[in-house]
């Protein structure tokens, strides 16, 4: 380990902590969001340094692109409807009694100290499950250990994760009401040229990330997040307009991943096998099938999560036309 890299790690770690604090404390809400995007950027760099490129890819795609856009959309919504506290120069929030503030700080310190003791007390760098995973790799059907864990050894976790995404879109469609935003005016010819050139190329990169997941870092979540970012740009710039008639298709695509995942689990169970014990020789095919369908579901669900409300004409209920 050469000396500059040690300084690099130190500076990066300090910066991550400082930006986390600054993002919560900075007064301007817009600065908060940009700082948060930069936080995602730097944590992805840190994960690369910690030899976790799969995690770095997921954070790069989700933490920087999608989260930033979601936060901006919410801020825009609050500002457009004149929320106190978000306007420049608005009144300060109610002061917190000193006792409560110190209790909060004390509680946080106690939890962090407890965690620190627990971490320091546990033996560092013991062997975890990497040897067990390495031994089982030939059976998994893929060459990337992280994909093997996600879709084979611990596939239940991943199935539940897809279910969580489904739950999130159900919540958002139930909760979000109010008028549709006015369609955005075009961003001009330069943007159109850029979109025509870049978006298809970016879609190919998304598919590549999915495909590469079998032997290199990448996989369904990274690829899906990449495709969702493209969907989000299509939505934002009016290249795609959700229509009430699209709801049935959208619902089908939301559940596609979950259904396919669960169906494979049930179909391979039988003849004395457990539910995710893929038959020998078919593991790779099944994993790629699941991953492909799950990627579609993830991309569509994340795009819909960004869009927010169900595309339907609500009649007379809670409309907020400014």
């Amino acid at each position, binding site marked *: 380990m050469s000396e500059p890299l040690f300084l690099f790690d130190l500076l990066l770690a300090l910066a991550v902590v400082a930006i986390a604090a600054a993002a919560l404390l900075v007064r301007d809400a817009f600065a908060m969001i940009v700082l948060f995007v930069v936080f995602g950027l730097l944590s992805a760099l840190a994960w690369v340094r910690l030899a976790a490129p799969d995690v770095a890819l997921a954070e790069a795609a989700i933490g920087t692109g999608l989260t930033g856009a979601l936060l901006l959309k919410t801020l825009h919504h609050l500002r457009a409807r004149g929320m106190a506290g978000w306007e420049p120069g608005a009144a300060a929030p109610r002061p917190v009694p000193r006792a409560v503030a110190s209790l909060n700080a004390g509680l946080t310190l106690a939890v962090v100290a407890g965690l620190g003791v627990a971490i320091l007390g546990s033996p560092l760098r013991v062997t975890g499950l990497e040897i067990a995973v390495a031994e089982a790799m030939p059976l998994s059907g893929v060459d990337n250990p992280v994909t093997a864990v996600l879709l084979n050894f611990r596939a239940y976790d991943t199935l539940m994760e897809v279910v969580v995404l489904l739950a999130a879109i159900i919540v958002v469609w139930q909760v979000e009401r109010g008028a549709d935003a006015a369609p955005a005016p075009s961003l*001009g010819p*330069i*943007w159109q040229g850029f979109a025509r*050139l870049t978006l298809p190329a970016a879609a190919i*990169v998304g598919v590549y990330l999915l495909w590469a997941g079998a032997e290199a870092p990448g996989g369904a979540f990274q690829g899906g997040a990449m495709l969702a970012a493209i969907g989000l740009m299509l939505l934002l710039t009016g290249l795609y307009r959700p229509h009430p008639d699209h709801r049935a298709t959208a619902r089908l695509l939301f559940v596609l991943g979950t259904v396919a995942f669960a169906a494979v689990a049930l179909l391979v169970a039988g003849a004395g096998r457990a539910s995710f014990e893929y038959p020998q020789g078919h593991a790779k095919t099944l994993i790629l099938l699941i991953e492909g369908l799950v990627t579609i579901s993830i991309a569509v669900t994340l795009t819909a999560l960004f869009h927010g409300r169900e595309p339907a004409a609500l009649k007379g209920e809670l409309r907020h036309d400014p």
Partner: protein
Amino acid sequence: MISMVAMVLIGAGALFFLAGTIGLLRFPDLHCQLHALTKADGLGLTLIGLGAALLAGSVGDIARIALICAFAALSGATCGHLIARHARRGDAEGRDV
């Protein structure tokens, strides 16, 4: 020899990034800052990409680096344009948000 050239290119690219950041911090208004940084990061990343491509061992890596530089250059130019357009509209309407 090749690695010497790569080192020089990468170092020069880093200098452009430094210059761009200084411009971003020191120039008085939005349009000047935009001017400084679109040039700086476009050129800086291209130089670093060229240097890295000289170090690359395989065709796949070179293709990836070329793609990265192409994406960054395209989105840098487009974003610079969008921001300038947006800022000019904002000035015209006298809005600040």
